[in-house]
């Protein structure tokens, strides 16, 4: 990651750059959401930057901040060898109005990466040719990676079997199991003889 890139962006988009840092050696620039696509296009087309690969595009959710979502893109230049992280912020505290321009016509990798960001966080990418869920099924409601989505809230697609004791169907007791073989766990818990253990 080279500092020259940060200077280049600052020079060309002075009003749009909100902050920059180089934590742990990764050059990062935060830009305004309205300038997102121009900055990206500049990074791709400029001869010094020539970022020909959009390595990753993801979102981080900061629910106590406003704007709530931070969209993070990592760029990489195969020819020059340098990398850059560019971030932008969007979305209100409820998670609505999270919109930013799509980078699909600049890099083809943005297609699926943005679909995943939309699926997981609900960030809408304007101009995306096919913005639908990719990892979750279409009937799923909500956006799972948001901090306010509980991790164990399931939305089953088909009804579970109507069997008594479905939460604990399989037999777990000592005498249920194989009819052959020495059962190493067949002893009771209070048996202190641990010669079975290898």
């Amino acid at each position, binding site marked *: 990651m080279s500092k020259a890139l940060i200077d280049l962006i600052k020079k060309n988009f002075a009003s749009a750059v909100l902050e920059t840092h180089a*934590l*742990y*050696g*990764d050059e*990062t620039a935060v830009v305004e959401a309205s300038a997102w696509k121009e900055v990206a296009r500049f990074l791709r087309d400029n001869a010094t930057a020539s970022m*020909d*690969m*959009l*390595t*990753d595009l*993801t979102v*981080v*959710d900061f629910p106590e901040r406003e704007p709530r979502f931070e969209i*993070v893109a*990592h760029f990489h230049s*195969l020819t020059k*060898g340098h*990398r850059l*992280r560019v971030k932008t912020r969007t979305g209100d505290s409820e998670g609505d109005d999270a919109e930013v321009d799509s980078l699909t016509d600049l*890099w*083809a*990798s943005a*297609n*699926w*990466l943005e679909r*995943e960001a939309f699926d*997981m966080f609900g960030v809408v990418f304007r101009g995306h040719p096919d913005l639908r*869920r*990719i*990892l*979750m*099924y279409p009937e799923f409601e909500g956006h*799972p*990676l948001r901090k306010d989505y509980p*991790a164990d809230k399931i939305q089953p697609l088909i009804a579970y079997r109507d069997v008594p004791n479905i939460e604990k169907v399989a037999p777990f007791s000592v005498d249920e199991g194989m009819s052959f073989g020495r059962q190493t766990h067949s002893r009771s818990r209070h048996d202190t003889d641990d010669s079975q253990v290898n």
Partner: protein
Amino acid sequence: MEPLDQELDEAELEMPTEPMLLNVGPAHPAMHGTVRCVMELSGEIIEHVDVQVGYLHRGFEKMCERGTWSQVFPYVDRCNYVSPMLNNVGFALACEKMLGVTVPERCQWYRMILGELARMSDHLTCDGAMAMELGAFTPFLWMIKAREMIWDLMEEETGARLTHSFGRVGGMASPPTEHLKENARAVVKHILSVIDECEKLLLGNRIFLDRLEGVGVISQADAISLGWTGPCLRATGIPYDVRKSSPYLKYGEVDFDVPVGSASDCFDRFMVRLAEMRQSARIVEQCCERMADSGPVNVSDPRIILPPKEEVYSTIEGTIQHFKIVMEGLKLPAGEVYSYSEGGNGELGFYLVSDGSGTPYRVRIRPPCFLITAGLERVITGAMMADVVPSFGSLNMIGGECDR
């Protein structure tokens, strides 16, 4: 049925011309893992395909936010489950980048040996499965036999055959066994002989070559734009390998080549993986020569490494250190980092966001084969139905990594 001797104008005939919709569903023998391709076929030619992934989305990134940093290791293991050591090492490197620690030399060589063996296991599985799907069952069985030898060694070293969770932030879970070097050398030697035999079987076979050459072609520009990395990108002619361009561990000090293809078809992807196994063998040999036989494997940093048990039970510092690491989790400083390494399929990146507590705030795994699968559409559109099998096999989509 119209009589055959009538002179009928084509325009007069009413023929149904809509393309056929074929669902190559999530449960399909030729699909590695679960991917659904909804294809519009016109005869045998695929006009349009909609690749649907996500059938193995297990919510890794959400689960990582519920534990500690070292509890992430089992999750990343199950990402690219054919080469789990590479994922472990990649994540450990990301955490160490954030902490600013470098593991001791011996650990770096050890990580490289296990990592390259995992890479060989990945390529053996991919190439073997590709051959099997084209009808060549024997090379698959030979390669699986060779893979068993790697897994035996992994079992000796880590305790598990497949999902070891052996990496730790600041080192490894336990030091190398005393027979590591002789075992590694024997395993590598055997694998090279297996690869030779498989090459003899496959590369002279007309059917095999015809089914792979010229099939599944993608242009270099498309591959770069799609974000492809790893063997698939190298098959298009671009010599990008993270181990060479930004060396980590001791990759800068060992001697190996990066095989590059030219035609960017399935055959090139197959051969690139085969050649990479040979290069991995070279790396393992050199690491075995240069790794010290004794010395520390874990960095001696009390913030991140558990102390030895004797100290925990005899000194108060050891007890406190153990308590803090186990109960609170190791604490990475607040901030964000992106660290990348060469996984089995390409650039495996980890974007970590930490808030300074022991719980990860965001763990983003940049999966190489997610973007490669995104390119599947481009690769098989316009090809015939039967070409989907080798094309998809050569892309090596691992469901665990693609969907996480």
